[in-house]
């Protein structure tokens, strides 16, 4: 602990030290060794100092190359916006900078010191990350949260006085309206975020990474946050700002770095960019024009009218016709899954109505939605659709008791008939229908979920990210299946974050943004650019 204190003292005197930190099992950090380095390297006048530098960073996960040879830097007194579609690699880059992952190749340095793959050492070296939703201990006071894990004092006794003073100093800079003895859980999301920023300041951070900090904030709160960011900038912090909202990026950023499919598209000064150029950089790819055979479109099967849920969905109206695939696009957090949850009765809604074939459906009752003819393939199949301990067969026939029972008794013969039929038609790869569903691959698990709905022949099928986390082969099988179902007259609502999927399958595209439908596009109008534009602005 002595070494750590000394190191803090040196850092306050602006002597840069390379630290190698080990986290003990009890969470105590100990400095293993410290090497002094100097950073008065000559740099061209007028260019802000580079604080964080990532060179040739590559990071892969099983089956995906999340980042491929990416260069990125953060400069003192500047806000660098990090942009890209869902899955472009932003989160991976942030997690690398925050010390959660080690790069497979390349390195990240902060003031010349290599970053270790350890969140604690990232903090010590001066990188603080503010995650999308605040990570505070709700029952602890603002002051305690700011000093969390770094409680001043000795021998395990916390010095309340020192804690108060240091917390007060940090709070005064970013949120003077807050009282440090208020429990953190009673603060608004915006204030909780400010507390996280105060925590970063009290740690003498040099780089502040803000991962979509504005998602849960109201416009005045965003203004306040931006004033704080300007103040931090003036004090020489380097800030990384991740946001899906382009207006915000143009309001706050000095530079923009765009990632696409794990690769760096480019870094440009904000002055050289405009809205359309940024979107072109983000979308970039050539849109493969999959052949789209026109299908006969029938009558309206499902009609959603004026559906609202406080703080989540705002006046949603649309319909889906028999044989029609309606794509629903939008960014993560735009409210698409929440809309599916309301339609299917998982969550209640405040006003509006859902009708299937002209009949209104009771709210907050999945059974009523199913009986009315709606099916839902949810986004998180492990959590929301499958019982991992049960066999493929039991999962396939779960809730199909009207087809598999006589007088309340299950017929394993009927269950097997249904399971065998759907496994064959969907080409489920499994040793038998009796293996546990959790032993199957993601694609095959998804087919089990699909099979359950197909056995029921719903009028409307809602698919929420049906090909997420599924390998390429199974992906195209599922896409083909969706088309076949529509040809058979089923009405399909396809929620997907993958633009190619939306563009190649949909007859119409709805774009959601901030809980509202921001655009209803015909197949001809829907392009990557128009969808991305409506998803991020307007």
């Amino acid at each position, binding site marked *: 602990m002595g070494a750590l204190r000394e190191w803090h003292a040196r850092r306050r005197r602006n002597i840069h030290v390379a630290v190698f930190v080990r986290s003990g099992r009890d969470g105590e950090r100990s400095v293993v060794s410290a090497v002094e380095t100097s950073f008065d390297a000559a740099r061209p006048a007028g260019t802000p100092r580079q604080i964080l530098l990532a060179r040739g960073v590559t990071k892969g996960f099983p089956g995906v190359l999340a980042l491929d040879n990416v260069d990125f830097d953060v400069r003192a007194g500047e806000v660098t916006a990090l942009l890209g579609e869902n899955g472009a690699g932003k989160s991976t880059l942030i997690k690398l900078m925050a010390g959660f992952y080690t790069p497979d190749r390349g390195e990240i340095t902060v003031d010349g010191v290599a970053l270790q793959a350890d969140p604690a050492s990232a903090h010590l070296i001066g990188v603080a990350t503010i995650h999308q939703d605040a990570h505070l201990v709700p029952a602890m006071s603002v002051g305690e949260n700011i000093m969390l894990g770094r409680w001043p004092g000795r021998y395990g006794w916390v010095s309340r006085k020192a804690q108060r003073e240091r917390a007060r100093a940090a709070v005064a800079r970013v949120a003077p309206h807050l009282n440090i003895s208020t429990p953190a859980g009673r603060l608004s999301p915006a204030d909780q975020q400010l507390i996280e920023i105060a925590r970063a300041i009290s740690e003498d951070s040099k780089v502040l990474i803000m991962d979509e900090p504005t998602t849960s904030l109201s416009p005045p709160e965003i203004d306040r946050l931006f004033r704080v960011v300007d103040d931090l900038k003036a004090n020489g912090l380097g800030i990384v700002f991740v946001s899906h909202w382009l207006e915000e990026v143009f309001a706050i950023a000095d530079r923009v770095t765009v990632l696409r499919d794990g690769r760096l598209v480019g870094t440009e000064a904000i002055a050289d960019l405009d809205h359309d150029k940024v979107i072109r950089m983000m979308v970039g790819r050539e849109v493969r024009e999959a052949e789209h055979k026109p299908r006969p479109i029938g009558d309206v099967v499902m009609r959603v009218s004026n559906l609202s849920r406080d703080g989540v969905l705002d006046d949603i109206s649309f319909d889906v016709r028999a044989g029609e695939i309606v794509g629903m696009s939008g960014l993560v957090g735009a409210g698409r899954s929440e809309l599916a949850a309301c339609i*299917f009765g*998982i969550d209640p809604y405040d006003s509006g109505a859902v009708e299937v074939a002209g009949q209104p459906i009771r709210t907050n009752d*999945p*059974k009523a939605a*199913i*009986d009315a003819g709606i099916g*839902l393939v*949810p986004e998180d199949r492990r*959590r*929301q*659709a*499958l*019982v*991992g*301990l*049960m*066999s493929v067969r*039991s999962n396939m026939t*779960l*809730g199909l*008791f009207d087809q*598999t*029972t006589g007088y*309340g*008794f*299950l017929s394993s013969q009927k269950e097997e008939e249904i399971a065998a039929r759907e496994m064959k038609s969907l080409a489920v*790869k499994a*040793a*038998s229908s*009796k*293996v*546990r569903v959790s*032993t199957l*691959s993601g694609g095959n698990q998804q087919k089990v979920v699909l099979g*359950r709905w197909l056995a029921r022949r719903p009028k409307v099928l809602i698919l929420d990210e049906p090909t997420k986390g599924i390998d390429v082969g199974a992906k195209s099988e599922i896409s083909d299946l969706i088309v076949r179902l529509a040809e058979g007259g089923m009405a399909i609502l396809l929620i997907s974050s993958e633009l190619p999927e939306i563009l190649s399958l949909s007859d119409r595209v709805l774009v959601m943004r901030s809980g509202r439908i921001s655009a209803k596009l015909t197949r001809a109008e829907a392009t990557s650019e128009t969808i991305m534009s409506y998803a991020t602005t307007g």
Partner: protein
Amino acid sequence: MTLENTQMSDIAPAGHGKLPGLRGRISFIDLMQSVGLLAVILLGGAIMSVLSPVFATMRNIENVLQSATIIAVVAIGQTFVILVAGIDLSVASVLVLSSVLSVGLVQFQGLSPEIGVLVALLAGLGIGLVNGLAVTKLRIPALIATLATMTIGRGLAYIYSGGTNIAPVPRFFVDLQAARILGIPAVIVLTLALALIAQIVLSRTSFGRSIYATGGNPLAARLAGIKTERVIIIAFMISGLMSAIGGLLITARFEAGAATAAQGLELAVIAAVVIGGVSLFGGEGNIGSMLLGVLLLGLVQNAVNLLNVPPNWDSVVSGLVIAAAAALDVYRRSYLEAGMRKKVIATKSKQASKA
């Protein structure tokens, strides 16, 4: 889930090219659960028959089984609750309340014994309903909700009985205790019959399937159209009803409306159920294995008595056995699951290399 319809060849040891034991009606782990427990019981029995000349007598074995019936009947109900990832602490209180009502209504109120039994059973169902509603509608954690009804139930039993045992009992109870069917005590036959019904309900009916689904993944069950709240309420009602039946058995055994009996029985029941392989996380377990857990606990109690362990030490011994059995269970389960994971990964990479 009976043992006989799974052949040993189904449990292929790792490396034999097929997924281990996932083929029969019973999973590998379920089978090992039963086989493992059975082995421990047989081994323990063998050791006991060497150590104590009394142990292997028909009389003693019958005695062990007969005293296990009460825990077994209550444990059947508890199994339903634990399968939906709940817990029911009120079982012993429901049991004594049922016991004092079944005798007291005849003794104090002069009602017929049939009415007494009926009211006792309805009281059990009623407390189960309250537990279920508290857990589902008020969203009180099951541990707390049933802790409350446990305290209330015991209190009501004391108030009604005046804190003492009520005797004599109606003739019906004496006959029940003495009756034999094909030479086997009727209470044992009754217990086995209830266990068989419970097992059939769990494995062969849509309600049973809903129980496993609700415990295994409540959200997925709800999204598949299962009324999970209703399933949970019924599970608690079954537990209440079975506890009330346990109360009738204890009345017959003690020939009294026993207000002060069954102290700490809820913990013995939960221990037996968990030793019997029912997962406290829900969704996993079956009645057959669970009964072996009850039997093991009964055996330990019997051994402690026969070996003249000082009375103050017998609860220490029982506790150690529970801890050992549970630790062994956790160890075996993680060992098996690790093996299964390896197996699955191996199979997947094999499939991948073929493709």
